[in-house]
């Protein structure tokens, strides 16, 4: 039986990382009206990128961070320009992005094989907090995720680009008439979401093993967050991330890690059934 404080701390770390990751999925849904079935694979891709940079090329930490974020931004923009931009119909969209995810995953298998490689901690060692020993990697992840969520809030609610993002999310045509270029806003949103997936991998993957399928559970959780919090709702997504993050850690520590996904699915179905617009009812659909 784990100590309550440890469960609380890991719940906090998990929730913050889920929030960072899921806000990206939620924004892409709300703004670009895209359900990105490949959103899990961006997480996997970034994790393998971190692995290649850290353990194969032995790059120092700051360079790794810059390269990963820059690559994910470039990936997001080209993903939008080449593929997502031309997709109109929802089912076609999911099918296409799912096939992209399959290709990317099998490409990763072909390059790195299915072997569970491990990434060393980017912040090695551990710290004593309130008498509990915590890995520095997790402490760093929690602080970084918290700061980035603040930056994200500022970006969405206090900048001109954020205003444009919310305008496009509300009404694309009206935004166009107000002189906003929806194409640019959507490309920006996809770049943002891909880099958020990359940063989540950067925070979560070190100090553990990586596998080509590691992104699918993350996509499931992002989906659960978005169903619970409402599609495209920034604060809803963050509150939902905390509900899911803490339930996930409680089930993992007190019951059995193998039941965590079943709990997430049960939650998704229950909310879809009883409150299809999300717990806070502010969803776009």
């Amino acid at each position: 039986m784990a100590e309550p404080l440890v469960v609380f701390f890991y719940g906090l770390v998990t929730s913050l990382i889920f929030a960072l990751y899921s806000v990206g999925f939620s924004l892409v849904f709300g703004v670009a009206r895209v359900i990105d079935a490949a959103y899990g694979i961006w997480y996997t891709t970034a994790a393998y990128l971190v692995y290649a940079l850290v353990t194969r090329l032995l790059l120092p930490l700051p360079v790794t961070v810059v390269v990963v974020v820059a690559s994910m931004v470039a990936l997001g923009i080209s993903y939008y320009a080449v593929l997502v931009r031309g997709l109109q119909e929802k089912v076609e969209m999911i099918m296409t992005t799912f096939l992209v995810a399959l290709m990317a995953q099998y490409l990763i298998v072909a390059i790195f094989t299915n072997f569970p490689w491990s990434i060393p901690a980017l912040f090695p060692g551990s710290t004593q907090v309130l008498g509990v020993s915590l890995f520095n990697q997790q402490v760093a992840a929690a602080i970084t995720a918290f700061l980035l969520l603040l930056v994200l809030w500022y970006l969405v609610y206090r900048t001109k680009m954020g205003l444009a993002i919310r305008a496009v999310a509300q009404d694309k045509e009206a935004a166009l008439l107000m002189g906003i270029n929806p194409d640019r806003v959507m490309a920006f949103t996809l770049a943002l979401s891909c880099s958020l997936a990359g940063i989540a991998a950067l925070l979560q993957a070190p100090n553990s093993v990586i596998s080509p399928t590691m992104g699918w559970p993350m996509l499931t959780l992002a989906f659960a967050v978005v169903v619970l919090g409402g599609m495209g709702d920034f604060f809803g997504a963050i509150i939902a991330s905390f509900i899911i993050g803490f339930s996930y850690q409680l089930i993992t520590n007190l019951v059995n890690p193998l039941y965590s996904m079943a709990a997430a699915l049960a939650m998704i179905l229950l909310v879809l059934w009883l409150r299809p617009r999300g717990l806070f009812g502010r969803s776009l659909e």
Partner: protein
Amino acid sequence: MSAVRPSHLAGIALLVVLAVLPALPGMRALLFPLTLTNIMATLAIAWNLLFGYAGLLSLGHSFFFGAAGYASAILSKSYGIPVPVAMVIGAAVSSGIAALVGLPSLKLRGHYFVLVTLVLPAVAYQLTNALDVLGGHDGIFGVPPLVRDSYAVYLGSLFLMLASLVASAFVIRSRLGVEMISVREDEEAAKALGVDTPRVKLYALMISAFLSGLAGAYWAHLNGVISPSVYELEKASMPLLMSVLGGKGTLLGPVIGAYVIQTLFESLKIEAIATARLFVFAAATFAIYRIFPQGLMGVLRRVIG
């Protein structure tokens, strides 16, 4: 329908060739791969009935395949129920779970359902791993076979595929089939014309899950073992790749796709290509989906017509 068309004769001839070919001397090595192909084709037919006709995309048909396989394996092994009966009950279990999962998500717009199907096999994978009743990580061994003779098993798989094809054709030509296509084309318009869209989608899902379940149960009894790996993404993506490659929304497309992919799969067992072949299939399907949305059937039609 009354006149015998040349295409019907060609189909019957092809069936006879398929039935006899593995029985010829020196061809016995084909028995197992072809049995597998027929099972995968049945799964692809079931998937295509849902996506190609009702427009409901499922990314987790491995769940309906695997759940029925598990149910049938347990019923026949632990409870001594005759294999054919166990297979039908197993498929009914899949169909029942499909209804439970479908009810909350099918009332909403299509994409919620898609995301739910994506989660299903992942959950099943974890649960079967966790529960000792379901055999845990190792799965269930010693599942009794349908019949001992492997040629009879092969003929059975051919019959299963044919029966699913006929059942699909029957559904498509019924009132339900017309309603399914109306939902696919324009759900709002179908609703406005008085089609009970959640009910139509639910029936389509249950029929598709039942057929997938039959395929999965057949597969479990063929192998004699079923383990959580049945829920891996590879199985879930196969019916999709096969149907899109062969031609979604056509009766024979999934069968053609299944035969093409399984043949390539078996012949590309060379070490160097083996790791990349799944990538090649995914890339080929992606290209075909984007460039020829009608798949190989569409290409065939253009060449013949």
